[in-house]
Structures are given as structure tokens and as C-alpha cells.
């Protein structure tokens, strides 16, 4: 007899720990201070994903993001930062998804397919965005950094504001 245990799946937890480690390595190469911020992030994401705590996973994602910020402030290159951000996004997303799957279906059910598809989709979105962003960055590098920055800032704020708005339904 198996009762629904609501425990998160191990596959997602492992995948997210892997992604978090990739993010850690990327930011650590740029700055050793970033390592100190991101290291607890890896532990929080991995532990949270195994224990089924969304709060721990979110804190871990935030710590990994903090690692990216520290690496950026220390003058890390765009490659390392993009990789760090992609790792952080993937780690948080896969871990949170695994917890949700666990709540719906439990650890004992066969769920590998849905988890792998979800991780692949997130990886694809992040990688395409990072690739396009990197190409544009390389294209405009050496131009007017301040003017470009201001426009970028306005664009980012507008984009976030648009995305924040709820669907009218």
C-alpha cells in the first residue's frame, strides 16, 4: 500500500543542484567573493529541492543571483555572468518544478519525462536569450556605453512592468 508522500522527485533535485553548481563555478571564476555568496545558494537549492521546501529553494535562488551580482560588481566578463544567471534560473526553476510534481504525484510515481521536458524548455529559453543578448552586446561593444545603458535601463523597467501586470481575466 502506498500513500501519497508528497515528497519531491530526486531527479529534479539532482538536476537543480547540477545547474546551481554550474552557476557557482561560473561566478567563482570571475570573483572569489562571489563564491562565498553563491556557495550557500547551492546548498539551499539542493537541500530545499530534496526536502520539498519552496522557501529554501527561493532563498537559494536569491543567493545564486547575489553571486552573479557580486561577480558583476567585481568586473566579471559577460560570458561568466550570463552562464551564472542561466545556472541560477535553471536551478531555481527545476527545483521548484520538482517540488510541485512531488506535491501532485509523489516521489514514487514515474515523472522523469515531465521533469526532463520542463528542464529542457527552461534551458532552451535561457540559452536563446543569453545567446541573442550576448550577440547584441558584442555588436554594440565599444559604442556609447552610457547612452546605451540608459536606454537599456528604460527598456528593462518597461519590460518588467509589462510582465508584472496580471492578465485581464
Amino acid at each position, binding site marked *: 500500500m502506498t500513500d501519497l508522500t508528497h515528497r519531491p522527485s530526486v531527479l529534479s533535485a539532482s538536476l537543480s543542484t547540477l545547474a546551481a553548481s554550474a552557476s557557482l563555478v561560473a561566478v567563482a571564476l570571475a570573483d572569489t567573493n562571489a563564491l562565498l555568496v553563491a556557495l550557500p545558494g547551492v546548498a539551499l537549492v539542493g537541500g530545499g529541492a530534496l526536502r520539498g521546501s519552496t522557501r529554501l529553494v527561493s532563498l537559494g535562488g536569491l543567493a545564486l543571483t547575489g553571486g552573479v551580482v557580486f561577480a*558583476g560588481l567585481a568586473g566579471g566578463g559577460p560570458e561568466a555572468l550570463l552562464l551564472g544567471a542561466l545556472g541560477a534560473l535553471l536551478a531555481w526553476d527545476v527545483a521548484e518544478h520538482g517540488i510541485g510534481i512531488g506535491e501532485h504525484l509523489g516521489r514514487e510515481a514515474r*515523472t522523469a519525462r515531465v521533469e526532463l521536458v520542463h528542464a529542457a524548455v527552461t534551458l532552451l529559453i535561457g540559452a536563446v536569450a543569453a545567446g541573442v543578448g550576448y550577440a547584441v552586446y558584442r555588436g554594440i561593444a565599444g559604442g556609447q556605453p552610457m547612452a546605451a545603458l540608459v536606454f537599456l535601463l528604460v527598456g528593462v523597467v518597461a519590460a518588467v512592468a509589462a510582465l508584472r501586470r496580471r492578465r485581464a481575466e
Partner: protein
Amino acid sequence: MTPFDTNRWVGVDGAALLVGAAGVLARRPALLLASVVGLAALAAARIDEAPAPTLDVERTLSDDAPDPGDEVTVTVRVRNVGDRALPDLRLVDGVPPALSAEDPARLGTALRPGAGATVSYRITAVRGEHDWEPLVAISRGATGSRERTAEIDADTMMQCSPELSATADLPLRGLTTQFSGRVGTDVPGAGLEFYATREYRRGDPVSRIDWNRYARTGSLSTVQFRQERAASVVLLVDAREAAYVAPEQGVPNAVERGVDAATGAFTALLESGDQVGIAALAPTECWLPPGAGAAHRARARDLFATHPALAPTPGDGRYYASVELRRLRNRLPADAQVLVFSPLVDDYAAKVARRIDAYGHLVTVVSPDPTVESTPGRRLARIERENRISRLRRAGVRVIDWAEGAIDPEIERASARWSG
């Protein structure tokens, strides 16, 4: 169902802004660039929608009429018959509440249009008629920002009838019918057990003459035996909601054990020539008048298997205590004994037993014990039940206290204690 937001991306916008803002304030273009990753994911989540799961569900059972205790493999085949891919599909099968699945009846998968998936699980059959509930399909978009739920019907039914196998002979009490049977009476006549001798009368069979006595005294005398008669018995199963109690999860509840015992008793009594009927204290009416023969046996088997009043999970509806008791009393044949199968977890069942006893039907109570001692409250319930049993015994009602395991040893022990 209409799709709704899962709110899982709330907060990611903050993190993306944080990275971007740090890049602006510190004049690090690379950091601003890094926030693109988060924004892209947010944009994808924003335009993502949960596709409606248009599924074709087919459920097959390895055996749709198993015996109780048999293992049945259930195979559910799901196919995406819509024209959109389902990137995040969670399926939970509607296993009937009385059955418990050995393996998870759940599946997480992603289906292209036309693609299919299979989940199979084993269940252990229990007595009754089981209807599967609809399969619940939870569909999310690829980013998981939206979710919708659908219930998909696939009618499946399993009917599980008990084998009518006899338990040890239940000791009946001395209230009998005019038919010959196995219950010893205080009437001399044809039988097996020695009863008395009397003076020879013309016409007595020669084989009955006590020749030893004739040799000793020279006078003829005839041996008489105890006449054995058949009884008329009504098996009364307590199947009120209060009787659905079990010591722990996954263990048969008192009603299931009571029905099991009643099934065994029914066969044993029928085989020894007694007339047996079935009744239940339940919201749904259940009455099979005492009878005998193959047709009666088949009717009883069907009733034990499928009657809603004896189902392994409580039914709906109110139980009208005094009305039902009066109806039962009117139905009971005057010469019927009553075997009550009740856990005796409340005073009502004990009251019914004493009331029927008072109406002149001899009553024996078979009581499956569902109590445990893990908490003070449960210990109290156990003591209350024990008190109820001893009060019943003081009132002249026989009680078999059936702790756990097989009922036969309990019957042996109880019959050793009782006489006649």
C-alpha cells in the same frame, strides 16, 4: 475548468530587476546583460498558456471479477487526441475508495499530439462492487505559469464476490424449528446423543432395546436419544457509519470483518441444515429472509458482494434508529435466533442486541475488536467496549470477543465456555 495562474514566477521579476539595477548603478554593462536571462524566462511565462488536456483514456483490468484478496493489475492508456502538445501533464487515476493501490496510480508525462502513455498499478481486490472515479488530468504550460484541471471519464467497474467458505460451526442456542438439524434439544426422540431410557412399549424398534439391561434385570427398556433440530438464524450485520472503525489505516474495518464472519457463518449454518437469513443495521435497507437451498445461497452470495448496505466504505443517508429496529423486529420470524456482528463501539448496537433478546429471539453477538491502546482516548474507548460486553453477558447475551486474526479459534474458545 478554466486555467488559472500558478504564481510560481512571482519574485523572479524582482531578482531580474536587482541584477539589472546593480549593473546600472555600478556601470557594469555585463551585469545589465545578465538580467536578460531572467527577463526572457518571464516573457515566456507571460505568453505561455496551459493547453486543455484532450485525452483519450482507456482503462483495462486484468480481471474484472476477481476473488477477494486477488491481485488485479490495472492498466490505464492515455493518448493526446488534441492538436496541441501537452508539455506538462500530471495524471492521477480515480482508484475506488475501498481499494488501495500497491503502486502509485499517478503519472507525470509530456505528450505530443497523437502520443500516448501508459500507467499500470496493482490493487488488491476487496469484496464489493467498485466503480472507478474519473481520471484527474492537471495540465500546465511549458513554463508552468498557468494550470488547468480536467476530469476524464472512463467507465470501469469491478465486481468482487466472496467465496462462500464455511467457518467453524457456530454454537447455536436452543431455539429451533420443526426441521431436523444439529442443535440439540431437550426433547427425546431420534438423534445421536444418549438422552434417557424408558420402559419398553410395543412397537419400539428392536435396535433401540437396551439388551444389557435386559440381561441384567430381565425387563425390557428402550434407549432414547436427544432429538436434534435445525435452527432458523438471522445474521444481523451492524453497518451503520459508526461501525466503520479500524485500528489503523489499511486494516479491514469492523464492518468488513463482520461481513466476512457473517459470510463464513452463513455457509456453515446452511451446510448443517439450518435456515439462514441476512439483515443489516444500515441506512440502506437490507433483508434476506431465512431460507435454504442453492438459490438462497446464490442470492446471499450476491447480496454479500454487492449490496450497498454492506459495502466496505460507509454509504450515504441517515440511519433512523428506532424505525429500523421496529421494522427488523416485525420481520424476524418468531423462532429465529439472531447472530449480531457488531464492533460494539457505541451503546446503540448493545441496545439492539438486548432488545432483540428481550423479544424472545436468542442472541449471540460476534464482535470484531477495533480498539487499540495507543492514546488515553483510545484506551477509554476500549474500556467502554469491554464494559458493554460484560453488561451484555450479564444480561444473558452470548458475546464472542474477536480480537484479530481468524475467527475460528475464537469460536472454539467461546463454545468451550458455553453449555447448551
